[in-house]
């Protein structure tokens, strides 16, 4: 829906300026990824050598790998878990649903640093207790079990933790829009509750699921603070690699990797949007015909 008359030239130039502000740093990043010298502020001629050196940098490449892996895994798991949880919450009595939704909102409304710190405390305490138990087992019963430490596992758990609430919140409105009688009708017509879920509920809320998945992935890719507190000393996401570098000197290889990531994201978004626009057009046409 549109609100009143279209904005004038002044309004449009203001919007354009704000968008310029949002994109200026990204343009600068991209420009200096093609810089010949290793300065990130003085232009010394065009070159692609940072791109070739990038792939030889073990630290950066493993950071990229960890970031992508944890974001993809967390997104898939959080989307699946969030979908089930949202359907569960929706079918609950209000008395139960409201407090549970309040708890669900905690990681979303809390400052990132508080979420990170609380998980850090929890993991350290839980693993401390477990490792103590393992040592005790070893000395008394000669039984052993692996000792646990902060690492990829805890990083993944943390990402799932802050992703699920976003998935649930984007699915909930779709569930409310759904006709309540559909589930009952499906079950009356002989569906088991699993079939009712698969054949009736999921198709109805699909846009919400996809939206939630996108938000979850965005949050995972963008996160630094929570990862920083839960990844331990040996695992590093790309953001943590960069953070480590800013204390000394940031290599232009970082510009190169961000340019590559940005271009990939841009292409993906263009493809998704073009496809959606086409679908919308087709749907509009069919609507006219019918």
């Amino acid at each position, binding site marked *: *829906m*549109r*609100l009143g008359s*279209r904005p004038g030239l002044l*309004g449009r130039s*203001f*919007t354009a300026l*704000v968008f310029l502000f949002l*994109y*200026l*740093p*990204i343009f*600068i*990043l991209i420009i*200096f990824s093609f810089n010949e010298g290793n300065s990130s*502020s003085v232009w010394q001629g065009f070159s692609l050598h940072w791109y070739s050196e990038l792939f030889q940098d073990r630290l950066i490449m493993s950071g990229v790998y960890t*970031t992508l892996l944890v974001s993809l895994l967390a997104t898939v798991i959080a989307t699946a*878990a969030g979908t*089930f*949880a949202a*359907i*569960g*919450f929706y*079918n*609950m009595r209000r008395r*139960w649903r409201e407090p549970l*939704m309040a*708890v669900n*909102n*905690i*990681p*979303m*409304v*809390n*400052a990132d*640093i*508080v979420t990170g*710190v*609380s998980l850090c*405390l*929890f993991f350290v305490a839980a693993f401390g207790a477990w490792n103590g138990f393992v040592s005790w087992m070893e000395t008394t019963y000669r039984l052993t079990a692996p000792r646990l430490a902060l690492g990829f596992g805890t990083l993944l758990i943390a990402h799932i*933790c802050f992703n*699920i609430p976003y998935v649930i919140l984007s699915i*909930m409105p779709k569930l409310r829009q759904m006709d309540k009688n559909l*589930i009952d009708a499906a079950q009356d017509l002989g569906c088991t*509750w699993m079939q009712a*879920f698969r054949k009736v*509920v999921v198709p109805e809320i699909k846009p919400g699921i996809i939206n939630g998945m996108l938000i979850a992935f*965005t949050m995972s890719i963008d996160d*630094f*603070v929570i990862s920083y*507190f839960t990844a331990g000393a040996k695992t590093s996401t790309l*953001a943590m690699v*960069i*953070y480590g570098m*800013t204390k000394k000197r940031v290599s232009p290889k970082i510009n190169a990797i*961000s340019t590559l990531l*940005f271009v990939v994201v*841009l292409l993906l978004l263009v493809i998704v*949007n073009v496809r959606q626009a086409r679908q919308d057009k087709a749907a509009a046409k069919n609507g006219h015909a019918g």
Partner: protein
Amino acid sequence: MKNRLAWFSAPYVLWMALFTVIPVIMVVVYAFTAVDLTTGAVHPTLDNFAQMGTYAVVFVRSFELALIATFICLLIGYPVSYLMAKEGPGFQRIAMVLIMLPMWVNFLLRTYAWMTILSNNGPLNQLFQALGIIDLGNLVNGGLNGLCAWLNGGAVELLNSLLGTDFALSTARPTDMTYFKMLYTQGAVVLGMVYNYLPFMILPIYSVIIKMDNSLLEAARDLGAGSSRVFRKVILPLSLPGVLSGVTMVFVPSVSTFAISKMLGGGTKLLLGDLIELQFLGGAYNPYLGSAISLVMMVIVVICMYVMNRFGEGEEQAVML
């Protein structure tokens, strides 16, 4: 339970108990305990909160910077959301994507790009140099120095002799600047906050404005209200929930940031986030004090939420996406 589908949430309820509720409880417990360094015994105490008094400066600075950043975000974000809502649907879809897109480049990278832009020999200073703005600054400073020297010789001397004071205006403004110092200042930190959290102001306000019932606006116009009156009496009050949620979503991360202040502020002037980080991963290892400060942060969030729920319409409005 209303029906069996409710059980779908059981695993997640367990997950929340383990990874959301217990960690939060642990922060609260840690905040009210401390470890005795000689015996190693843990005991309940309120010392952590008393100790926070020594960091009052950090609290004040964090709140100040975060409030300024939130205010600037509102000043920029509200008009943008309003203008976007007036555009056609095609433009709106592209604009939404354009606002989300920078978030896919990790926020640390974007902040790092600002380090480049603001640095002493960076693009912005080069632009200022080329436009002669730095020379202009030198000229203005020189003029001000001259003016102050003249006043010191005349009016100020007279005042001093009358009041018996020893007062003088500064004449030491630099006139040989080759760049403006922008990086590692408090202004840079505010810029970083505004830049990173502006989308969180735009999205909730936009989503509230876009859902507004157009017939209300038409009714207001039909009843003779001018466009500024329609805005003041109809659009502004109705968009208040979005504004409140935007303010919260900018203020909370701003007040708790630590990477931005370290990268753009140079890490010399601590913010609350830096203080917490220091207690957990930095040199001043003291998770009990860190938990106490975190608890204060949680209380701030709860207050924000309470205020929002009094004005807003509940869960849906609170979230932008």
